[in-house]
């Protein structure tokens, strides 16, 4: 069972602060993390590998610093790591990113299962996984909360708003995972030492993965960000004090004032 997991390094949005004057994110000094959903996909891949044998290869596209997220994947137990790092990739939207990742997966070849996180916490698009499946003409199952492997096929519980669907697909296929699929835990000291001393992060360029250069990067991206803005911060809540009767009267008058309820 050869599994390829695609991960993204993202700014830790819990740590991101907003510049009150410009309304933009202050990225300086914000730590980067492996995108949480991607981490769940990685852990799932390692679980499957431990049960069914095989190999887990992790791919990330990003700047040289993304190596850290790949080393973390190796520490958790991934076998190989590939960083797609090339100025030609810069500014790629989801479509262009999917083209690069798809080409890299083709380049690696010999895979049974592709695992992605549902979506990244910085862009929240949830598009790259499905787009890679289209690029490779593979069946895709999104929002997986449980994965069971059978002979040449996979059975997946697909998370819905109320309940779940059970979907079966032939291998190879691409699955995007939600956080409910597993518990992440921690890499062991042995894992960390192996990741930094015995395993490698292979860096591949656009040329090496033989991707069509007109399908990657900023200029080839069909979508572009027109404007970023921060939603206004919610005001402070109001606490009403007094006896129940007083509080209810005040509440009703406020609601009327705001025209949330009509006059009786």
């Amino acid at each position, binding site marked *: 069972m050869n599994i390829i997991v695609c991960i993204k390094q993202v700014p830790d949005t819990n740590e991101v602060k907003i510049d009150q004057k410009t309304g933009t994110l202050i990225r300086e000094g914000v730590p980067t993390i492996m995108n949480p959903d991607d981490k769940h996909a990685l852990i799932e891949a390692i679980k499957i590998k431990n049960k069914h044998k095989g190999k887990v290869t992790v791919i990330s596209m990003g700047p040289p610093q993304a190596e*850290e997220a790949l*080393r*973390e994947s190796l*520490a958790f137990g991934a076998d190989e790591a590939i960083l797609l790092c090339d100025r030609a990739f810069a500014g790629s939207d989801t479509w262009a990113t999917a083209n690069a990742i798809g080409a890299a997966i083709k380049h690696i070849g010999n895979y049974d299962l592709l695992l992605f996180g549902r979506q990244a916490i910085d862009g929240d698009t949830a598009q790259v996984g499905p787009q890679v499946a289209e690029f490779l003409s593979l069946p895709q199952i999104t929002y997986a909360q449980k994965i069971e492997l059978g002979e040449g096929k996979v059975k997946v519980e697909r998370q819905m708003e109320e309940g779940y669907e059970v979907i079966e697909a032939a291998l190879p296929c691409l699955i995007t995972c939600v956080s409910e699929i597993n518990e992440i835990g*921690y*890499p*062991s*000291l*042995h894992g*960390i*030492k192996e*990741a*930094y*001393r015995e395993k490698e992060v292979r860096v591949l360029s656009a040329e090496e993965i033989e991707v069509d250069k007109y399908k990657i990067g900023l200029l080839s991206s069909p979508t572009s960000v027109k404007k970023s803005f921060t939603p206004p911060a919610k005001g402070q809540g109001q606490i009403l004090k007094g006896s129940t009767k007083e509080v209810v009267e005040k509440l009703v008058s406020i609601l009327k004032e705001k025209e949330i309820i009509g006059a009786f």
Partner: protein
Amino acid sequence: MNFDFTPEQLAIKKMITQFVDSEIKPYAADADQKEIFPAEQIKKLARLGVMGMSIPKKYGGAELDNISQAIIMEEVSRGCNATAVTMGAHASLTCHPIVNFGTEDQKKRFLPKLASGEYLGAFALTEPNAGSDAVNVQTTAIRDGDKYIVNGNKIFITNGGKADLICIVTTTDKSKKHNGLSIFAFEPKKTEGFSLGKKEDKLGLRGSNTQELVFRDMRLPKDNLIGGVEGEGFKIAMSVFNSGRIGIGMQGVGIAQAAFDECLKYVQEREQFGRKLHKFQALQFMLADMATKIEAARLLCYKAADIKDKGKRYVKAAAMAKLYGSDVAMEVTRAAIQIHGGYGYMKDYPLERFYRDAKITEIYEGTSEIQRLVIAAELLGRGF
């Protein structure tokens, strides 16, 4: 001179910090108040390889450098000191003599089990009349054919009542004084003639186990004599304590950091005289002093660990790290209670626990006075 961690050390720091915040710190108050031995936390640390951090890879350990071990000690101490001392007595005190002085047979028999956490370790030196005066050990081990017969008792032994492997310092020849000391490793749960004495009721570290060990004609195979040669015990014990001092220094730093973190949060929440506490310069000065002392203590520990990693003599550096780290633990936890005022004195807040936990760092693994003697001896060139 380079003050940066390696990427590997950073990854270890990140992992252990997250682990401590979610798996250790939330249980610290209960461990203290209900005297709950941190068995679960130790099991989890073992699964991460932490209990085998000082053990070579070929015996199943993680074989970490000393800086990484110091990082782990600080973080675990920041979360829960009962857990930290349980871990330290195992990973530092018990593993050190076997790793560095054990015979190949002893390493093969004991280290894999200590590394995996299947065995919890303890190291027993202290007796009613031997502590700082280590040479005055009264527990005897008398050779009898292929065995040694051990008689005596040990007090204040961390993990004593929980351990699966205990290293005990005995005298095999009283007339030779420190040259007559010998250390044995034995499995208490499989050994006749061994029993547990009083379980101590302590000021701090209340979740940890501290117990008396009693030996009555306890027969140990001669193969359990660490290193296989009599009279090496004093040298081994001194090496154990030298190494352990970096850990205790870091324990002090961890406690102090935990107290400081609480203060930094508190001064930004609490208001008096219509202003947040952090607006008062008197408190700003206290915080600045606390942070400076913590950083200085931490750097002394890292320096000692670095010298040790480079294979050079680190006796003075380790003694300074321990002396200052424990001083800082006391000063900072005391100031932290002061900043919290009445709240700091109450058991609903962790400050009084930090204060109680800090005190022992000035006492065990060589009191502050012994550290000063060690430092002075190194300065004056007498050796120790």
